[in-house]
């Protein structure tokens, strides 16, 4: 127990861990703000496709430079490949459902990323860090970027929330009142892409989806109002994300995987408690 408390102290003693801690809080907060909207807008699969397709950008960046420390190269290459996935998501095909082309595209970009990385890189462990997340990758740059993304999300989602709710709940009614639904959709994909790209170091390409979905999933199952939905989502993220980070540091585990397991466990625990309380009432 004493060791565990000491490991918490580490976050305030070592500068790089403090950066990681604050960045994690900001990213968790950002994910919590968009999480209920991702679920209600039925964008979970496109979220998975975007996050997985970051791998191609990461592989290119890691093969060309020591991009692990070159934030700009990493950011640009990853943004390009993920935006490609987003654009593919909104392009319509007449005969086949949209999710099938997304499924094909993101697995193919992943495969291409692995091939490029295998042919080009000499530091095989780097990619593993990005697949499952590693808090040691987070630095001061990430803190500022996380703050920027949080402020951007707050301004574009939370302030005009009523408009987002209307286009989500009644898209046909909104379109008939001359809302530009396609612009809303495009913007939302762009925002998801930005959040995913920023969170990749912390949560990992494969596991970021848990951070994006569990707070909203929890909130939508327990909240009885819109206000509660966003408060629950934020509280869930703000409790689970630091806990996951502390456990990852203490046990020297990949941060993304630890975070995902902590969030999933808490989600299951909440459903178990809900079930038991209903049984007791009956």
């Amino acid at each position, binding site marked *: 127990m004493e060791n565990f408390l000491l490991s918490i102290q580490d976050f305030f003693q070592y500068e790089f861990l403090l950066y990681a801690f604050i960045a994690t809080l900001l990213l968790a907060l950002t994910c919590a703000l968009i999480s*209920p909207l991702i*679920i*209600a807008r039925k964008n979970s699969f496109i979220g998975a496709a975007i996050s997985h397709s970051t791998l191609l950008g990461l592989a290119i960046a890691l093969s060309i430079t020591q991009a692990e420390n070159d934030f700009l190269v990493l950011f640009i290459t990853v943004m390009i490949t993920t935006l490609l996935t987003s654009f593919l998501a909104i392009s319509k095909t*007449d005969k086949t459902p949209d999710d099938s082309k997304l499924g094909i595209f993101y697995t193919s970009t992943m495969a291409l990323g692995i091939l490029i990385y295998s042919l080009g890189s000499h530091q095989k462990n780097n990619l593993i860090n990005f697949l499952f997340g590693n808090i040691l990758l987070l630095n001061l740059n990430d803190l500022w970027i996380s703050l920027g993304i949080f402020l951007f999300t707050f301004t574009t989602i939370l302030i005009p929330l*009523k*408009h987002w*709710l*209307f286009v*989500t*709940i*009644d*898209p*046909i*009614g909104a*379109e*008939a*009142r*001359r809302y530009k639904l396609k612009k809303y959709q495009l913007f939302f994909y762009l925002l998801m892409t930005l959040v995913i790209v920023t969170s990749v170091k912390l949560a990992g390409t494969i596991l970021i989806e848990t951070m994006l979905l569990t707070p909203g999933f929890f909130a*939508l199952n327990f*909240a*009885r*109002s*819109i206000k*509660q*939905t966003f408060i629950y989502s934020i509280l869930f993220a703000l409790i689970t994300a630091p806990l996951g980070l502390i456990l990852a540091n203490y046990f020297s585990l990949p941060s993304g995987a630890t975070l995902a397991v902590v969030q999933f466990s808490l989600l299951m625990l909440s459903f178990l408690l809900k079930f038991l309380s209903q049984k007791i009432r009956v």
Partner: protein
Amino acid sequence: MLHLKNISFHYGEKPILQNISFDVMARDTLGILGPNGGGKSTLMKIIAGLLKPSSGDIFFDSFFNVNKDLSYIPQSNELNTIFPLKVTEFLTISLLNKKLTSDEINHALNLSGVAHKKDSLLQELSGGERQRVLIARSILESPKILLLDEPTKGLDGQGIDQLLKILKELKEKQNTAIIIIDHNINEVVRFCDKILCLNKTYHWHDHSELLTKNILEDIYHCEFEHLKLHEGGKHNHHDHIFCQHDHDHSHDPKAVNPKKHKYLFKK
């Protein structure tokens, strides 16, 4: 107020609407009838601005503000109810450009018969109740043209009467023009002044009394006795398809005695 000139719509190479022209003035009540797939909802979506016609023009008079003066009620099952949103909150976020008072909201909900549900969550309402909430929204909008796509779906007999009463009031007190699609042929003919029968091509009637048995049979591609099967829309979908492809329904236990429907064309 609303003028359609030679509107056509194709989905791929498949023609849905061909050369449809008509005008709607203030206080008009236009009923759109026709079998499923005849293009009724497509035409309504074109008027609402949700679809662009493949060819033809749609005009509104210069005093008409499309953003404010047109209200469209789609079918209720098209609402996404994942968010826990109260009925009053839904009305507020739907009409952000209007500063609604709680008295106005209560009045509209009262008229549409769901005042007792104002603090309920949208996700807890039945299809019929959601439809009434959408009607309340349209009342709050005070539109110059009101478009309703199958508004009686999910409503019981009392609900249908209540709806027609509200529509009549909107027409008489606010000069609202009403365009309505419905499978309840009897109700549509009884309520509307003008009738548009659609099955890709169209038949226009300035007076609903001019609608004859032969025209309806021609539009629905089935005999008059079976038109009753079209009423209720999706509920009788199987019968509907059956009707279009086979004129001999003598073995159909649901076939309705035509004598019972003599009132159909009487106002």
